[in-house]
């Protein structure tokens, strides 16, 4: 465990977090602090974060004074860059059927999983196609330049 103030945010961190997600992360740390011991923040030899910038901010907001880190001080600059990206890439995909059938939807949202809202509200009749009307088929007469609707001529 080290003093939280000794860790520095990475100024070149390419990741962002939305406000609502950030609030969920802070709450998640408060609810389940052991998670930080199982998955510590990763820093380089200068104590700059390679993995866990958002978590550090959230830990500070959650009022933590000390946290566990892993120091990856033998990585080249190139490897550090690679780590930053790979640490955030999810190669797998969610099986939404299993999630839907075996997990609590409210918990999943609370834990920060993006569940698409599929509870749509009704639309209106103006958004519907008029199937008992045909669109006019307009052509311009090359001789008199008048518009002619071909629908008016027999069964076109």
């Amino acid at each position, binding site marked *: 465990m080290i003093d939280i103030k000794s860790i520095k945010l990475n100024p070149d961190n390419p990741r962002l977090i939305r406000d609502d997600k950030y609030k969920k992360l802070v709450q998640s740390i408060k609810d389940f602090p052991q998670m930080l011991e199982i998955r510590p923040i990763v820093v380089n030899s200068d104590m700059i974060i390679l993995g866990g910038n958002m978590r550090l901010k959230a830990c500070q907001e959650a009022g933590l004074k000390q946290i566990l880190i892993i120091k990856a001080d033998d990585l080249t600059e190139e490897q550090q860059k690679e780590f930053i990206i790979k640490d955030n890439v999810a190669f797998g995909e969610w099986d939404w*059927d299993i999630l839907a*059938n075996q997990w609590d939807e409210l918990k999943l949202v609370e834990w920060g999983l993006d569940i*698409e809202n*599929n*509870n*749509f*509200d*009704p*639309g*209106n*009749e103006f*958004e*519907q*196609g*008029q*199937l*008992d*009307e*045909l669109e006019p088929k307009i052509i311009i007469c090359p001789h008199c330049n008048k518009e002619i609707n071909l629908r008016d001529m027999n*069964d076109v």
Partner: protein
Amino acid sequence: MMSERPILKLDWCTHKAAKYACENWHYSESIPVGKLVKIGVWEDDKFIGVVIFGRGANRSLLSPYRLKQDEGCELVRIALKEHRNEVTKIVKIAIDLLKKLCNKLLLIISFADDGQGHIGSIYQGGNWIYTGYIKQKSKAIYKGKIAHRRTFDAAGIKGYESMDAHKKYRYLMPLTKEMRDKVIHLKKDYPKRPKQAMDTTSITAAGQYRPGRSINQMETINA
């Protein structure tokens, strides 16, 4: 014991909601193009899918009945997730809404795809007129996705496999007495589902529902 059925509501549906339902709850995983009437379905205020009417892919769809393009339409999608109300009832209410919007329509046509294990139980339950089947030859499969061969061709996809021809059972729903009189002579006996094909999904008449996604839930619902 089965609990009380949820409150069913059908109303106009946005394109976004209809697209979501088709892509997630219909075997085609796609919404048709062109003019559509999209009717959303809600159970206890929760969106559970859509019934869609359109002109259909075949331009000569209505010509055997001597109708013009603006006198009939095709029921092109019933895309529902797990549901507690009967599909036949849902379709009936959807047709009432369609008639309200397009009151000059005389006939609705729909097809049940044998390739998906459907025989049209929904239409049989709703007293539609069965008029025989057509053989669909132009479907193909590519990376698990089934579509018309021309769809793959248009997308520049090569290497798809043509699928065996299968039947599409054709059902008619005349919307006026005159139209019914005009087509009733085409009526044939309803096709029957082979015994070995019976499963829990058939009990709910959810013929259009993509199997495998909610069979467990349906069994619970029907228990």
